[in-house]
């Protein structure tokens, strides 16, 4: 309600971040000293600082062009950076998950259910392949729309 972003896309992003933090980085302690963690933390931090400034200034109706430009341009580098960090972290966590049987339940058991967290993580990694390009090109499309719109405004002034 407060900002015009899509609830579905945003909650998807929030869920994926929560997943990375709790279900991967926190759960697999061996992975916490990896460089890939640093990579996605930096990417997320910079992105969020810009994004929330963008929202705040927009709501105050005083949006400096620099913030708008930053939001719709820096993602070109930050987004792939974040995704690489995330994927490398999950990949690094895999052997430890396998070894510890983390969050996995196997047959036989009285609920007749099984879950393999290792396979689940691999599925998550594979899902990046269709999802990442869609989100990335959506942002590029938004960029073209919003930054060229500002250009035209400037021409009329």
């Amino acid at each position: 309600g407060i900002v015009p972003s899509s609830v579905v896309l945003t909650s998807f992003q929030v869920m994926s971040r929560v997943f990375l933090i709790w279900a991967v980085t926190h759960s697999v302690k061996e992975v916490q000293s990896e460089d890939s963690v640093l990579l996605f933390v930096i990417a997320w931090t910079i992105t969020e600082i810009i994004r929330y400034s963008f929202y705040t200034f927009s709501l105050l109706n005083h949006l400096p062009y620099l913030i708008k430009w930053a939001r719709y341009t820096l993602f070109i580098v930050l987004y792939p950076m974040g995704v690489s960090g995330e994927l490398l972290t999950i990949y690094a966590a895999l052997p430890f998950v396998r070894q510890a049987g983390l969050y996995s339940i196997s047959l036989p058991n009285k609920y007749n259910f099984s879950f393999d967290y290792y396979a689940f993580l691999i599925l998550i990694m594979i899902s990046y392949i269709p999802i990442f390009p869609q989100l990335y090109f959506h942002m590029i499309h938004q960029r073209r729309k919003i930054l060229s719109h500002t250009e035209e405004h400037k021409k009329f002034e």
Partner: protein
Amino acid sequence: MRHSPVEILDAKTREKLCFLDKVEPHATIAEIKNLFTKTHPQWYPARQSLRLDPKGKSLKDEDVLQKLPVGTTATLYFRDLGAQISWVTVFLTEYAGPLFIYLLFYFRVPFIYGHKYDFTSSRHTVVHLACICHSFHYIKRLLETLFVHRFSHGTMPLRNIFKNCTYYWGFAAWMAYYINHPLYTPPSNLRSSAGETGARHLCGKEAGSVTSPSTWPCGTCGPLVRSKTRKIPYPTKNPFTWLFLLVSCPNYTYEVGSWIGFAIMTQCLPVALFSLVGFTQMTIWAKGKHRSYLKEFRDYPPLRMPIIPFLL
């Protein structure tokens, strides 16, 4: 006979798509749709949504032109509903899948479980019973689709078949994998005998089929059946219809009951999850149906709940 002209405009762009200058006043919307298809063959009638207002509700095929509130030239707005596929096709595909897929797991076809289990059979009675119940359920649904259901709309959007089949086939495979697994753990005798819950399950299915909308006394309506006169469904001599006293959509109530029975009988978590998802969806449908009943009938029995007696 005075003929009325009809013009058809695109609901989004207001572009004039078609002008029919000699339409008989007692022509139905269905006939107008057929005429429209002649000039635009890519939009077959099932794909057309014609309405009086660009943002309004679709007109029904049976509506007659002269009974509509239009001027001398009727203006209809057109929306493309997208590629359509017939209900019957979708239902048959989505129900045949689980029937076939479950049997693949039951007979332990190669490459599902380890090779030493190929074509072996479970030693637990409940596994055989479960196969019978599951297969019977889907055979019943297929027969209903072929011989019993009457559909108000002939078609639905094409992408629904992928969505629906993924749901039914996916869950069927997931459930069947565990129930027919060599390491399956049957319920202990203490909980309830397999026979009892199996019987409960079978009854549920039978009851469900009898109270499904298509077998209701004529003039009643269900999620799929639309008939000319609409009356409140009431219990008859058939004991399975007595649930109408308490519930608007007893077919859903029985359906949920039978899947819960199946879950208890097989003691399988994926079955419970499938029941839960199905229950959620059926509750949404039942509430919608209940709301439309309340709107339509002033004297609708106040005791009735949409799907669960007294509760939901």
